């Protein structure tokens, strides 16, 4: 854990640049949820995950499951930063034959632990990984990132109940609470009321943080790893902003699944400090 907060912020900034480049190049994809999750995934990979980028299928690696698999540009950017894939590979996002498929895919991309894209599946898969780790007496853990819209899938709650029943202390969820889903704000589509209370009632350890404040993110990850929270599954509810870092994407449901045009792309690069205005 030699990386400073400033180091992490710089990695996340670089990843934001890659995210915007990927969706702009492909003229398709999901920038909003990639930008909201990026500070969290950056800190997780750079400071917590026990992984060997040169040996992506190492049996005892921690698993990371991007259950909101549409937000793949964020994960690809981090995998490139960590050395699982090259920055050149990022150009293959949504391109025929490319390592970077539209949705994260374990058959196509080294470092991807689950083929996602259908919401509400990752937590169950993570529970399987955690259960296997326990049977193997392995220290490895399963981290699962879910979306707030995704939480409307009933299967999420089947997994939540089962993981608590089995006291899977090696299963850790990060919720990207960006308040927007595909069509609109979550509040319009399906209100979810008291989210922390729901998870607590399902038997989980719960902590809320600001998912864009790197210091809070690190505290949140400490919480997930703390021995006293390894008695059962834990969830970090990260309050985020969909599209975070690009002014016109922030809090804008239109950028859930739409690419910036050339002018907007330029503006994004300026805002991220990549080019002069």
């Amino acid at each position, binding site marked *: 854990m030699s990386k400073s907060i400033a180091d992490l912020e710089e990695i996340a900034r670089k990843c934001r640049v890659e995210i915007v480049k990927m969706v702009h190049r*492909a003229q*398709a*994809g999901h920038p909003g949820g990639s930008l909201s999750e990026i500070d969290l995934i950056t800190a997780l990979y750079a400071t917590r995950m026990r992984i060997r980028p040169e040996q992506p299928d190492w049996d005892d690696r921690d698993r990371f499951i991007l259950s909101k*698999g549409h937000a793949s540009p964020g994960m690809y950017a981090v995998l490139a930063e960590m050395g699982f894939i090259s920055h050149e590979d990022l150009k293959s996002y*949504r*391109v*025929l*034959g*490319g390592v970077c*498929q*539209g*949705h994260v*895919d374990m058959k*196509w991309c080294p470092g991807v632990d689950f*083929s*996602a*894209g*259908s*919401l*509400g599946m990752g937590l169950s898969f993570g529970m399987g990984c955690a259960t296997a780790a326990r049977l193997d007496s392995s220290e490895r853990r399963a981290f699962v990132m879910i979306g707030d*819209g*995704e939480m*409307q*899938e*009933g299967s999420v709650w089947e997994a939540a109940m089962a993981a608590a029943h089995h006291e899977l202390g090696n299963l850790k969820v990060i919720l990207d609470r960006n308040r927007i*889903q*595909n*069509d609109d704000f979550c509040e*319009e*589509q*399906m209100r979810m009321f008291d989210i922390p209370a729901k998870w607590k009632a399902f038997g989980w350890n719960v902590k809320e943080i600001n998912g864009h404040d790197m210091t809070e993110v690190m505290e949140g990850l400490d919480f997930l790893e703390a021995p006293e929270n390894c008695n059962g599954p834990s969830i970090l509810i990260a309050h985020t902003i969909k599209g975070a870092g690009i002014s016109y994407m922030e809090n804008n449901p239109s950028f859930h699944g739409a690419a910036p045009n050339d002018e907007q792309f330029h503006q994004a690069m300026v805002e991220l400090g990549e080019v002069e205005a």
Partner: protein
Amino acid sequence: MTRMAATRDGYGQALLDLADNPKVVVLEADLGKSTKSLHFRKAHPERTVSCGIGEQNMLLVGAGMAASGYIPFASTFAIFTERAFEQMRNGVARPNLAVHLCGSHGGTHTGTDGSSAQSIEDLAVFRTLPNVTVLHPCDDVSTRILTTRLAGTKSPSYMRTARNKTPVLYDDIDPDSIQIGKGIELKDGNDVAIIACGVLVSESLKAADMLMQEGINASVIDMHTLKPLDGQLVDQMVERCGAIVTAEDHNVIGGLGSAVAEHLVANKFAPLEMVGVPDRFGESGQADEMLDVMKLSAKYIVEAAKKAISRK
């Protein structure tokens, strides 16, 4: 220039056409912008039920409303309708409740989203359910007409629509000629019959042109209804052409090809070649690229036609 349009837009239009009937309700699972039910939602929010990202719930809410005298139209991506398959089986088809399920973005033609979004088995699975009508129209005009007709049926349905634009074939058609369960002969020939659905209907017309240049005269059928299959028309094609090709953006197992094969073996027989996804998952690619990668484009239909003829 041929007008280009996506079938999902025909679905969205049809819901608006149907809105005069106060019993028509629309159910959404956070994909109304994509399936095009959003127009109905804007015009009639009081008759639109948002089910959040919860396809299983949506299907059974539909069943409950159908059992209470409403006519529910529920939509999501074709792939995610499969998430609610058992709900459709036990809660909708078994009690024969007229819930109309529409799966948009069907097939590999849906493109760069990749394999998780490209349903290649929806037509097959829903075809196995008793009472369920299965449709896969080829253009926005016929989608609009067929969707409107569904509202008058007394049993459930599954209709696949496509994300991307394809040539519009029926701009000037008499609506009466588009009926559930009746295939449409788009071109008549007598050497081979190409029976297609969805995005491969226009590819089949292209293939027929290519065949014509080689002196082969093909019939082209738009078989927009997979179930009940228009067996009479298939029989006619067998008699007239003596060789059949099916073409669909769907696994070769279980879809239109299988439906036609099931009919052929029990009736007048002819050699059959099936153009379809070769029992593999898709991947990210542009719509037209996918048709080539999956061996579905016109040139593969031409190959299949020649092979079917050679087997006469």
